[in-house]
């Protein structure tokens, strides 16, 4: 078939308007069979932002001040650091990111003794961790914790909170060590998730009942994709609070808790408001 020289160089897809229904990169059009320049560059920008998010350091000073004010804390959050000294080590040694460095462990112990709370038990320890996206933590922790603290303080039950901690170069499991040192019944780790192209700012929430070092994933519950364009902050706080209450009632977390709570089918949340598949509609 001869090529028609009057046809456009970039062929747009007649179904492009479908992209109003999903964040997926559909209907991109094509130059030959390849990506048009504008779509190529849009992708490169998103990838650059996601890469930057991985290497962007957490501004602990700013976050600390912000949390102290927003949550009306009597003392600033305790500042801790994992065994991974920098980002390059962090990326290659997940085991280092899962435990505190010696200074931090000592600091935490001393602080508890000075504060004369070493014998006290807490209902919940909140641990804010940079993870793979400090951006997510920087932007979303304060709104999330404001919502959560509001729910905790207006609950009929009493919730004793351990000192708030902020951890640099940490992974999820570091919360178990911290929760254990703080004598907390449960720990919430708020951590920057592996950034996606369309979600460099996604926060993950992990809860462990009876935290101690060495626990595996099957003991944790996770709520993922917490960000303004994903799971809304308020809704995430509500879901977490339900999970926390259930954990306290059953005195467990992880797979066993999940089994009881997840038989739901996702459909109400539809972006299209439709549960009908247009491809097979009559």
């Amino acid at each position: 078939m001869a090529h028609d020289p009057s046809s456009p160089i970039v062929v747009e897809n007649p179904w492009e308007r479908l992209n109003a229904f999903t964040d997926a990169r559909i209907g991109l059009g094509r130059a030959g069979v390849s990506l048009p320049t504008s779509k190529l560059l849009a992708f490169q920008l998103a990838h650059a932002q996601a890469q930057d998010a991985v290497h962007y350091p957490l501004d602990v000073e700013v976050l600390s001040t912000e949390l102290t004010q927003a949550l009306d804390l009597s003392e600033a959050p305790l500042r801790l650091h994992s065994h991974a000294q920098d980002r390059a080590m962090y990326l290659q040694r997940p085991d280092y990111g899962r435990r505190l460095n010696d200074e931090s462990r000592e600091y935490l112990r001393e602080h508890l003794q000075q504060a004369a709370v070493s014998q006290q038990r807490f209902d919940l320890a909140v641990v804010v961790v940079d993870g793979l996206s400090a951006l997510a933590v920087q932007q979303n922790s304060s709104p999330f914790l404001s919502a959560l603290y509001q729910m905790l303080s207006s609950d009929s039950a009493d919730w004793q909170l351990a000192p708030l901690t902020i951890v640099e170069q940490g992974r999820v499991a570091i919360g178990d060590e911290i929760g254990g040192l703080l004598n907390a019944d449960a720990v919430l780790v708020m951590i920057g998730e592996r950034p996606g192209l369309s979600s460099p700012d996604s926060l993950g929430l992990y809860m462990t009942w009876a935290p101690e070092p060495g626990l595996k994933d099957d003991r944790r519950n996770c709520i993922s994709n917490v960000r303004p364009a994903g799971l809304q902050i308020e809704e995430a706080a509500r879901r977490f609070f339900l999970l926390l209450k259930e954990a306290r009632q059953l005195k467990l977390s992880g797979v066993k808790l999940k089994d009881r709570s997840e038989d739901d089918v996702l459909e109400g949340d539809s972006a299209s408001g439709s549960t009908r598949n247009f491809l097979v509609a009559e």
Partner: protein
Amino acid sequence: MAQTYHTTVGSRSYRFASLAELMAKATPPRSGDRLAGVMAESAEERVVAQMVLAELPLTTFLNEALIPYEEDEITRLIMDDHDANAFAPIRHLTVGDFRNWLLSDHATSDVLTEVKAGITPEMAVAVSKLMRNQDLILVAKKCRVTTAFRNTIGLPGRLSTRLQPNHPTDDVTGIAASILDGLLYGSGDAVIGINPATDNVAQSVKLMRLMDEVIQKYQIPTQSCVLTHVTNTLEAIEQGAPVDLVFQSIGGTEATNRSFGFDLSTLAEAEAAAQSLSRGSVGRNVMYFETGQGSSLSADAHHGLDQQTCEARAYAVARKFNPLLVNTVVGFIGPEYLFDGKEITRAGLEDHFCGKLLGVPMGCDVCYTNHAEADQNDMDNLLTLLGVAGCNFIMGIPGSDDIMLNYQTTSFHDALYARRVLGLKAAPEFERWLEEMQIFQDVSTHRLNDQLPAAFANSLRHLPKEPRHGT
């Protein structure tokens, strides 16, 4: 009886305490082996290990199990299923001779098919450690592994794609939109496969029905799969759900698979259950497995082995259950196992080679995460290399961006690029369908239709009118 291995190079003497250590130290460098503490301590030690490995008879791997027979059902599977007759033509070879033989003109496609049941994962992995990338490509290209369900995958000159329409909330319209986009770019002959956002039976059944309806309405010669746990799919089958393929992530040690919540008997049960539905039209391969270097170490179930050896042992699990598709998800696991584009590329070629040599229908999720030192150029390179090597299938996703799993894999466009530059085609049954549906103007030259094909134009009229923004 385990033995130690010694050699001397110049004034230095080297000692390898076990076969496992020798294998690990002979492995091209990668971060996961460093993390596990099994990597060679110097570049010289690595090559020395390769030289010692090259002298070992292949029969060593039949006499010495890397994980004890009594402790691991995968070792038992490998040893018990070994075919001594198929092994006879290569029985006398050392690992180094095996490389020469594989590259030689003796090892034709037919001969490689005849010996595959005599090759164990450890033999495949050992020889791969001595091979350069071009060797891995050349030998893999000679291996033919063809499977079938509603179409035929893995024929020479074909490159199939899994259409992967994932959505972070499993939104029906969002998934359908990605399926349409993929089909109209010629994607989806390997499978239309969804990773569900919520992993339970009810959700999986909903997604199975969604895909089954699309496949039936448009009479697409392909199959669907929801990538949920094997036990969920078994339950879905009991409930009467339209299950084409059963999915499971698998590893190369019994302990890895236990951490994934299944054992070999579960897979046998699943294969029988899916086959009992008789939903395939041209074949009975009903399993879809995913693997990836690093999964055993990640599950703390690697028994001190290097990650490539664990990976190849997973192919022994795969070939036992006659899969339609086996997919090494090479760059998904992250930089602590494969640090950068170079390590990902090497691992992708190794996995494809080892799988094909063992007779497994190997495809590859050519992918990376945003915390790895890799980018689209690395993926272009690996995609091209695997296309040359005769890889059975790759992924296809809108614009390379998986908005649910947060990683980048090959796009619908990428697959067409590979088909065009390498002269590859879709599975024959699917290719005919693409032509009949007028998705392509000319499928032989990969010329897409500029217009919306009639059957799909009609469906677009049923779109919901007002999308709701900001879920």
